[in-house]
Structures are given as structure tokens and as C-alpha cells.
């Protein structure tokens, strides 16, 4: 078992574009759930809208990169509006069910055979990332970041991904310390009190839903670009649940919490995978197959989510007074 290699892989996972995408999507959930108290279980749907919006406008309409990104963002705003109009007046548990249903509707629609020409059905779409990598200013070659090395494409997507994460964190931080953010937190604590102060609660909630959804749609694009493919199976409800695990790990009403939560989530997954596979390889564990070891890690994710929620709902960074459900 090569511990150096396992640690290097874990570090690579920490700065991977997938982790950046999870951090960004979880930040969106922090805006929804942590700051506004909106129990959005459809973040996977927002990510799918972003990824498919980008891929379809690139492939079907030959749109250049900025237009494709814009289309994806507009699509997610529309999705937020469509979702928000019927649901924002509902109680938390109804909202959860409706948002999860809406995300599944998106997934069913992009999977259907009738739209294979546009969405690629269950196989998804591919070969839409060239426009993004054409912008790469880095010279071809091998780059070393800490213990791992990568080519110029990998480094480029990481730079872009994490820059967006940092900018998004700054934006959310500024928004939440503004008067607008204070109203939002007020809505989370007591909706009726804020309404009594003359604020339009519905409009604030809608704005929060749109902003979190935009972050989700950006995350969807960062998630899908390094893969060079977008497939509907990636955007199932489990994605949303993993994002909630990240959010709760870090702290739901914090700016850095979702980012740190996503990093911890992927590092722990990578470490347990490395250790389990290593132990299987040297024969220390004989009762597991590699496939089962993979499943064991997700059993642990589920158990971790339960234990977190019960014993430390504020996460690593959070403040217990700032829980959406005190």
C-alpha cells in the first residue's frame, strides 16, 4: 500500500474541478437553505440545466462560448422562476418534494428518446468543450501542482473553476452582509415579522432562489467541462443529497463552509477508497470486493449525514444560532 500515492490522490481530489463544482453548487444551497431557509432539493436540476444549456447551445446552435454560458445562465433563471412561482408560498416539506420532483422532471426530459437529436438521450452529449479549451493561454506541457502533475487542460479548468468559486464566495459574502442579506436572514428566522416590516417576502425568496440557482448552473458547467460529456445519470437526486452532505459538513449559513465541506467530502471519499483498495490489494481485507468497497464508502456518506444532522447540525464552521431550523 503506497501511502504517499494515496495522499497525493486525496490532494488531487481536493483541488479537482469536480470538487470546485460541488463547492459552487453547495454555496448555492447555502444561499437557498442556509441563508433563506428554502429547502431546495432540486439543485441537481439546476446543475443539469446549466450543463445541458451550455452543451445544447454549443452543439445544436453553434453558439460561441460566451453566448452558450449566457444561455445556460438564463435557462437556470427561467427554471428558478418556473419553480419558484408555485412553490415559494409552500411549507418547507412541500417545497422539498416539489423541487426534487422538478429536478427529476428535468432529468426525465433530457433522457427521453424523443429528444435524442437534441439531448443525446441516456448517452448524453459530448464534444462541446473545445471552445472552452481554445481559450487556454497555458502552453502545452506538464505542470506540477504540489504532489501531482497534470497537463495544461487540467490546470486550465482548475484555475477557471476555483477562480469562479472564489468570486462566488466573495459575491455571496458581500450580498449577505448587505441590507438585502439581512432581510433574507430575517425571512429565515421569522417570515411574518419581516412581512410586518413591509418587505415583500416572496420577491426576496425568489431573488435568493435565482441567485442560488445561478451558482448551481455555473457548477453544472464546471462539473461537465473536464469530462467532455454530459449525461443525465449524473444529475439524479443523489447528487443533491451529496451536496447537502457537503453543505452540512462545512456549515450551512457560512460562505466558506460549503467550500470546505466539499473539500472534506471528496478528500474523505478519496482516502477511504485508497485505503480500502490498498488493503484489498495486500490482502488485509478479504471479505470485500473493489465494487463493494466503493459502495461501503457511500454507506458511510449516508451514516455521516445522519450523524452530522443529529450531533453537529452547524457543521465545522457554522454557528448554532444561525440554523435554518432552530
Amino acid at each position, binding site marked *: 500500500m503506497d501511502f504517499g500515492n494515496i495522499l497525493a490522490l486525496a490532494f488531487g481530489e481536493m483541488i479537482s474541478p469536480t470538487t470546485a463544482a460541488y463547492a459552487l453548487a453547495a454555496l448555492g444551497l447555502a444561499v437557498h437553505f442556509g441563508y433563506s431557509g428554502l*429547502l431546495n432539493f432540486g439543485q441537481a436540476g439546476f446543475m443539469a440545466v446549466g450543463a445541458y444549456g451550455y452543451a445544447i447551445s454549443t452543439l445544436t446552435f453553434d453558439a460561441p462560448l460566451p453566448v452558450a454560458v449566457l444561455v445556460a445562465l438564463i435557462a437556470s433563471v427561467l427554471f428558478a422562476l418556473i419553480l419558484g412561482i*408555485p*412553490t415559494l408560498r*409552500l*411549507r*418547507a*416539506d*412541500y417545497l*422539498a*418534494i*416539489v423541487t*426534487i*420532483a*422538478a429536478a*427529476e*422532471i428535468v432529468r*426525465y*426530459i433530457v433522457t*427521453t*428518446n*424523443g429528444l435524442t437529436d437534441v439531448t*443525446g438521450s*441516456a*448517452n*448524453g*452529449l*459530448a*464534444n462541446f468543450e473545445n471552445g472552452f479549451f481554445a481559450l487556454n493561454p497555458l502552453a502545452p506541457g506538464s505542470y506540477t501542482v504540489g504532489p501531482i502533475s497534470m497537463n495544461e487542460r487540467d490546470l486550465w479548468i482548475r484555475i477557471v473553476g476555483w477562480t469562479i468559486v472564489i468570486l462566488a464566495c466573495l459575491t455571496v459574502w458581500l450580498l449577505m452582509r448587505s441590507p438585502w442579506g439581512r432581510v433574507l436572514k430575517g425571512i429565515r428566522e421569522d417570515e411574518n415579522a419581516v412581512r410586518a416590516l413591509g418587505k415583500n417576502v416572496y420577491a426576496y425568496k425568489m431573488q435568493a432562489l435565482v441567485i442560488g440557482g445561478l451558482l448551481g448552473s455555473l457548477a453544472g458547467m464546471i462539473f461537465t467541462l473536464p469530462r*467532455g*460529456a454530459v*449525461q443525465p*445519470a*449524473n444529475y439524479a437526486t*443523489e*447528487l443533491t*443529497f*451529496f451536496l447537502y452532505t457537503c453543505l*452540512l459538513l462545512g456549515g450551512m449559513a457560512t460562505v466558506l463552509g460549503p467550500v470546505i465541506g466539499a473539500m472534506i467530502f471528496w478528500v474523505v*471519499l478519496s482516502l477511504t*477508497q485508497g485505503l480500502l483498495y490498498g488493503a484489498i490489494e495486500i490482502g488485509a481485507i478479504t471479505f470485500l*470486493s473493489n*465494487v463493494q468497497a*466503493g*459502495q*461501503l*464508502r*457511500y*454507506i458511510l*456518506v*449516508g*451514516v*455521516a*449525514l*445522519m*450523524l452530522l*444532522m*443529529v*450531533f453537529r447540525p452547524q457543521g465545522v464552521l457554522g454557528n448554532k444560532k444561525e440554523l435554518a*431550523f*432552530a
Partner: protein
Amino acid sequence: MITRPTPAWIRRLLVFATGLIAVLMLGAPAAQGYHPGPPATAPSALVSSSLPAGEVVTQEFSDRISGVLRNADGPLPDVTISVSGNGFDGETTSAANGSWSVGVPEQGAYEVTLDVDTLPEGAALAEGQANPRTVTFAGTSNVTTLFLFGEGIVTNTTSFWDTLAERALAGLSFGLLLALSAVGLSLIFGTTGLTNFAHGEMVTFGAVVAFGFAALGLPIFVAIPLAVVAGALLGWVQDAGLWKPLRRRGTGLVPMMIVSIGLALALRYIIQFNFGGATQQLPGAQSARLDFGPVSISQNNLNSLVVSLVVILLVGFLLLRTRIGKATRAVSDNPALAAASGIDVDRVIRIVWMVGGALAALGGILWAYYRPGVSFNMGQQILLLIFAGVVLGGLGTVFGALIGSIIVGLFVEISTIWLEADLKYVGALLIMILVLLFRPQGILGRRERVG
């Protein structure tokens, strides 16, 4: 919320965890011997492997193009399919179950041609199906392409009303099996306020345990009651080990909902860990079709319809006519008042969890016959439809859940007349969202419970 972990609480949690794992490991020992099948979508890999069960895999190359040929009458065997591109030419014929697979040396674009002359009598490609067609790999080692078949030369003589009646009958059967799970979910919501996202796994659990007992050699009519008892046991273990301590601590409803999501994930992967990612069949999954005048229904669907109807009527009778049923309705209405009038609220909730678990297990077994097949994520597939049924009828009302589920079942099946089959769940979910828009309390919900 008080975070003071007492020894009793930790003890309970340990009992719960070990009990859970023990039950599951006992529940599916037979599945261990089976081939694990295709690795199910592990979220880290995030690759969709849509391998149909029982596919013949040519292991010559690691990348392959595959698909299944079926038309309305069933699989189409012995059809020649050729693949060419990237300097490679390959040919295969479809197996008895209609599946075919061609290994290719590298990823890229290939031209896939179906030899129309080898199609069996009466089968023809549907209109607009490209043949030959170009198939491109999208980062995965397997790419599927489906040839859709039309009615072919066989003229379609069934009238619209016959189709409608047949779909409605199937929808009734589907709706009633959904209602089994939905009634349990609704009872649990009514008495505890919990929106239980782990209900889908309780559905899967029933089917998996029934499969386990059947694979041990028990006859199916013994295995099914045992699985239902195991489902009740799972409900009891969940309540005693997890939900009751959480209620004691005064945990809010939203945290409990998120805990149930964690439980759903854990249970789903524990089941997959033991059962594998493949789809298995319960004994008697294939059954004859019975004709009743204009409509026909498979024997299994008819049995499922009768069983769920009888069980739901029984539950309804118990709720309306017995002391414990009355107590349950009292707790649903107002737990504090019920406790003050001498009802043992914890006992009622415990019984509700057991009934809910048993109903979910039975629903899962019937769902396994309806799909057909047992797989680790079968419960997750209908969880939202169960929710839709419950929400349509009004959260917390049992008869609402019954009516809501029947509407969902009918809608799902009847919509296949116009919609593509892979979109049939979309309609039901849309209806749920629309009902919430105009009547948030559901069809039978009480007015004051506005969502």
C-alpha cells in the same frame, strides 16, 4: 435543540445500527451467491452504465456498442447488426433476449447498420429511425443505441377505447400498489410530521427480502409473508432506534427529514452492498395474460390489484372501526390532546411505523412483479410517485393517499397512449405540482393545512 448525548441514546443508536446491518445481511444472503452484475452507478465514477440484465458481453475489446431489440411483441432474436468505422468492421446477431453488443477497438464514431432483411416476420423499424446511423462514444466505455420498432406489417386493430380500458386497468393495479406505500407514508406523516425520504428503501427492502427468502428455497407464498413481517420489523427497528430518540430530543421536522435522507442513502447502499447492482427476478415474474372481453391483464397484475385492494380496505377498516385505529386518527389530529386523553402516543407511533413498514414491503414485492424485477434502486424509482400520491390526496390523510395514488397510477399508465413511455412519470409529477399550485391541501386535505 439540546445536544447532550446520553449513554442511553448512544446505546440505542448502536442497537439500531447493528440491528439494521444484521437484518440486511440476514435478509439477502442468497443474493451473495449471485453474480454482482454490472457495477451500479457509483457516484464517484458518475458514469451511466445502462446495461440491460442478462446481456452477452463480448470481452474482446473494452469499448463496445450495444443495445436491445424489442418490439411490442417482445425481444427480436437473430437480427444481424454490423458496425464499421475507424478501420474496424464487426458484425453480430441479437441474442434470444434481443440484446446485442459489438466490441470496438477504440472510442470514436461508428456507423451501425441493422440488416432489415433479418428481422422476423411482422417487425419493421419505426418511422424516422435512422438506419444506418452514426454512434459516437461520449467518454464512457459503453454506448447504447436503440432501434425502435413500429407495428410493422401487422395491422393494428385495437380501438382507442380498448387501449384506454386496458391502460386504465393496468393503471389501477399500479396505483393500488403505490397506494400501499403511500398509505404507510401518509400515516407516518400524520402521526409524527416526518416526511420520510427513506420510504423508497423500505419498499426495496421488502422486495429484496422476499427475493432472499425465495432464493433460500422457500415457496413464494411463504417468502412474501415473511418479507412483509421483515418490513414491519424494519419499521419497528427504525422507530425504536432512530426516530423515537430523535423525537425525545425535540429534533425539528426539517432536520428529521434530512436524517431520513441520510438513512435512505445508507440503506440503499447497504442493500446494494449485499444484493449487487443487477436486476433479479422473483419466482413467477412471467405470467400469462388473461382476457376479459375487451381488456386483458396479466395474471400478476390482477393478483396485485386484488391483494392491494383487500389490504387497503383492511387498513381502512382498522382505522375506522378499531380502538387502535381511532387512537391513530386522534394522534394524527393532535398528539398533545391525544396524550392528554390517555392515549399512549409512543405506542401508536410504533404501531404506525410497523404497519407502514409492512405495507411498504408488500408494495415493494408487488412493484417487483409489476416492473418486473428486483433491484437495489427500485424503491427510489417510485418514491416520488408515492410522494405525488400522498401530496395529491393531502399530506397526512389516509384516504387521500389512496385516491391520490390511484390517480397517479391511472395517469402514468394512460399517459403512455400519447407520451413516450420514458416520459410517463413526468406527467404525474407535473400534476402534483399543479395541484399544489391550486389546492395545496390536496384533494381530501383539511383546509387549514395550507402548504
